[in-house]
């Protein structure tokens, strides 16, 4: 079975702290994604990556950055956490070949268990 592991299920941080959310997948997937999930807003894409050292902005990249130094690991970074970044963060991966350009099917995503971040 595909396994996507997020390093922390629950985190509590203070405003202004730098926060790292780590995600590792074990199925050699090319594509990895970071979403945040908020009540009433659903899942919103923050960043995604279709190859090592590649990254593309999603719908809400402001206040976030990402790192993909190795194929299996995709990190989400909050340079200076703010209270409006309190949320559930979900990492996902998919095996479809990158880039995910128009005309290609977008297949199944495999999600981690989520990281619930509270910023005080």
């Amino acid at each position, binding site marked *: 079975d595909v396994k996507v592991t997020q390093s922390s299920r629950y985190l509590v941080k203070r405003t202004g702290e730098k926060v790292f959310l780590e995600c590792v997948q074990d199925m050699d997937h090319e594509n990895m994604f970071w979403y945040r999930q908020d009540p*009433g807003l*659903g*899942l919103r894409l923050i960043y995604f990556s279709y190859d090592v050292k590649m990254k593309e902005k999603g*719908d809400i990249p402001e206040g976030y950055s990402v790192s993909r130094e190795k194929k299996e690991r995709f990190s989400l970074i909050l340079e200076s956490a703010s209270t409006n970044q309190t949320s559930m963060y979900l990492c*996902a991966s998919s095996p479809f070949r990158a880039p995910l*350009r*128009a005309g290609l*099917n*977008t297949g199944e*995503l495999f999600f981690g268990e989520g990281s619930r971040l509270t910023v005080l």
Partner: protein
Amino acid sequence: SQQGEEDPQALSIQEGENATMNCSYKTSINNLQWYRQNSGRGLVHLILIRSNEREKHSGRLRVTLDTSKKSSSLLITASRAADTASYFCATPALIQGAQKLVFGQGTRLTINP
């Protein structure tokens, strides 16, 4: 940018009854997917239906797709308490030159014993 929208937002039924959730989307798609999320957990893929398919089954799940109406439905038959979860449809959308999955806000399903 919202592509798929689920209806109803919440649904509560008795165990053993059937549950139907609907999803509407805005632009042409090549597939539509349904996911389940148990409270506080990640999403789990349930089923993918391609644009040239009208109906697909997986166990107690039945998904239909009507591309002329840009809508899909998820039917769970003979519901069980373990089916209590949120259900999301997801569709590909072109954003900044790349095709990504966009999720609706979900239907929260409660199965009462």
